[in-house]
């Protein structure tokens, strides 16, 4: 690792930012970036990483704080162009690539004014410039290809080259430094592509410094020189990985915080899991996401699939839900083989329900609670034999659910968008409480909600398990697995590593 200069290339001190006078996104945060460094900024969703980056790039202005470039204090940039003149540019997590443009067009997008003569684009000069910079930064691709023709990691590399080029062009002859912010760059990539990306990034360290924003711990550990940890808007830890010996667990605890490791719900006595098999996965494979995943699920059992972000756990659970199709292997539900490209509604017909804690996408926010709960349970509130909905039955069903989950709302007819996050999640869970599918898939069920709501949801989930509903859980919170699961499968880079019991797992994820 390169020795950092005495004077930091970039330093932000004491940055604070509050939204709407209420939500404190950043509270007195200080980070620094040195020459030829890859600096990690890590934290959970909502920790403030994204806000901090947006401040650096000029999209937001901070309420408090100072910015130093090369030791001199400068004002915060007011827009991305000013940020580029300072030397800061961003590569976005998604939607940054324009698929139908050619590589040279994309690289120089926004800078055409330097290649224009009498309003005619000098495409030859553009292509030449594109080839030169790609070669300088060791990225191999044809400048005439369309962006969509390149493999995803190459697309990401081209995005990074574009960011560096933007900064150089903005600074012109005064080119001093390039600091490129990489916002969760590996999220859309396959496992092999990530390796490639990191290889190229390490090469590029000679030409620029990088701020690597992520929550994928193994990658951060392996590829950054220093790490800043944000939690709830505050800088809680800072490690110099070249000097200190830090383990993944340390980083994990810093990110998640000691408080949330407290037992908030005591697991009951070990549940007796039946012998009956409800779901079998054998050698499920999807190129770039997961390989040879096999497991059995018994009636009443809860299987947790755990792993770092990007390990494939999300794709696996979505595959079982029908949102993603698998390429090889077999999936058998209640003794019947299931087709790889089945749609979610068909999977539901076979007894598999899915919900995610991202209530923005999950619920019909402009519908009342009652309608959200009844949609998946429509059959139950139909006044047979006519195809007519019984509003009375719907109301009773909703009130039942609201009581059981302690959903706080004026009435069953309250529109969902006005509910708090925790209550929204309860509605999400609630509809499955009524539906009682044979298998329920839970993805991030309690993301971002408070302790009380979480406890209510856990209680309900455990009761459903006692009633014979089998479950698969995917989450970012290890405590959740210990509370809810009967066995936990650890996945890394798309492959199963080993299976833990809840006690073993608790040990492994503790100090």
């Amino acid at each position: 690792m390169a020795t950092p200069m005495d004077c930091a290339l970039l330093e932000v001190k004491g940055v604070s930012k509050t939204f709407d006078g209420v939500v404190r996104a950043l509270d007195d945060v200080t980070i620094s970036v040195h020459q030829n460094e890859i600096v990690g900024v890590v934290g959970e969703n909502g920790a403030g990483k994204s806000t901090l980056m947006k401040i650096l790039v000029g999209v937001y202005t901070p309420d408090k704080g100072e910015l130093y470039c090369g030791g001199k204090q400068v004002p915060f940039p007011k827009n991305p162009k000013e940020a580029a003149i300072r030397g800061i540019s961003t590569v976005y997590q998604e939607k940054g690539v324009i698929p139908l443009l050619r590589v040279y067009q994309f690289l120089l997008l926004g800078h055409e004014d330097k290649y224009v003569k009498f309003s005619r684009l000098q495409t030859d000069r553009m292509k030449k410039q594109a080839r030169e910079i790609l070669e300088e930064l060791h990225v191999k691709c044809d400048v005439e290809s369309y962006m969509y023709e390149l493999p995803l990691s190459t697309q990401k590399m081209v995005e990074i080259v574009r960011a560096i080029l933007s900064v150089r062009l903005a600074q012109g002859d005064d080119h001093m430094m390039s600091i490129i912010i990489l916002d969760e760059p590996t999220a859309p990539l396959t496992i092999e592509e990530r390796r490639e990306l990191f290889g190229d990034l390490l090469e590029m360290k000679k030409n620029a410094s990088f701020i690597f924003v992520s929550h994928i711990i193994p990658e951060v550990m392996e590829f950054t020189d220093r790490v800043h940890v944000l939690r709830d808007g505050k800088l809680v830890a800072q490690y110099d990985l070249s000097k200190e010996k830090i383990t993944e667990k340390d980083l994990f605890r810093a990110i998640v915080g000691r408080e949330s490791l407290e037992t908030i719900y005591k697991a009951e006595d070990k549940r007796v899991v039946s012998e009956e098999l409800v779901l079998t996965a054998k050698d499920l494979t999807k190129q770039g996401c997961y390989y040879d995943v096999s497991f059995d699920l018994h009636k009443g059992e809860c299987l947790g699939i755990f792993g770092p972000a990007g390990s494939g756990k999300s794709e696996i659970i979505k595959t079982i839900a029908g949102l993603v199709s698998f390429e090889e292997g077999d999936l058998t539900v209640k003794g019947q083989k299931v087709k790889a490209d089945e749609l979610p509604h068909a999977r539901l017909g076979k007894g598999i329900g899915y919900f995610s804690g991202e209530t923005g996408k999950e619920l019909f926010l402009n519908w009342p609670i009652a309608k959200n709960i009844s949609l998946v349970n429509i059959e139950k509130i139909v006044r047979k034999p006519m195809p007519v909905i019984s509003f009375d039955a719907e109301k009773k069903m909703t009130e039942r659910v609201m009581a059981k989950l302690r959903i706080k709302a004026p009435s069953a007819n309250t529109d969902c968008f006005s509910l708090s996050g925790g209550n929204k999640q309860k509605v999400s869970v609630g509809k499955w409480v009524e539906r009682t599918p044979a298998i329920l898939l839970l993805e991030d069920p309690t993301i971002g909600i408070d302790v009380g709501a979480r406890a209510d949801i856990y209680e309900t989930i455990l009761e459903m398990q006692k009633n014979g509903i089998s479950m698969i859980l995917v989450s970012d919170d290890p405590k959740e697995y210990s509370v809810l699961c009967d066995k936990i499968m650890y996945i890394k880079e798309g492959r199963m590593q080993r299976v833990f019991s809840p006690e073993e797992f608790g040990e492994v994820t503790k100090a």
Partner: protein
Amino acid sequence: MTTLARSRPITTAITQTLKTHPVILALIALFLLFSALYPERFLGPLNFSTILRQFVTLILFALGPSIVIVTGSLDLSYVGIYMLGSVLVWLLTPILGLVSIVVILHLEVATGFLIGVIQVKARIPSFILTLSLLVIYSGLTAYLAGGYPRSVKGYEFITATLIPNLPTAFLWSIPIIAAAVFIMKGTRIGTYLSAIGSNEEGARLAGINVDRYKILAFTLSGLFTGIGSIILFQHHGGSATVELNLNTMVWPLLAIVLGGTSLMGGSGGPQRTILGALTFTVVNRGLVLALLNPEAVQLLLGLLLIVSIVVSSRGLKGVTVT
């Protein structure tokens, strides 16, 4: 990603062009087919000039919308603009003389600009916006014209025959088409519009002023339709029509789609529309010669429209389409 041998540049260039523009093959095939079936009539000078006439009408209507489609929006207002413009010429010529024809231009550019601004600020889906505008303009046209088609004298010089059997309008259209292609391929406007159509959010993140360029796209559409209207006005005998014909509205769209411009934006544009318009005209003439029954021709062209729309949309897998 391209691994073609560099040793024979001309051949590879041709092969590449054919691959990305399959409609050329269709065009050649159809041309040969009709020539073989009806040699005297199809290859005769009269047919030739008819094809060119139809081509001119089509391309001058289609250039503007093809620019807008690249951004992913639709512009259906062209027929309305043309109609209203014609009626205004009829109204104003007695007062302002031949200068009135320039009035069309101003009207159409202003309309394009207005559409762009409304689309961007009020966020209405462009098809409804431009369809409503089309309807409004056609209504205004009928109102101003008192319900009858009106003819205007005095502009014959625009299309006076210079070369026998070659419609002068065609000669006029050449620089117009060239200008459109230049703007879209030779300046950064085309790149930006393509970017907006391919990934609007990404274009915004890359620093492109998306609102401004969308408005520009609609304004250019109005401009080209306007210039085209001036030519077409006389090309059609110097009369203002008051009937809104579904076909007149739809065939330019078919020309655009046939040419290979994607409905979702991001690729294609005027250069492809030239091919589409040519192909459409050839098909149309061929069918008319073959069947002589205008209704059957219309039916078949309608089927062609559907087929090409479906084929054109095949690149949309994974997208939720409503």
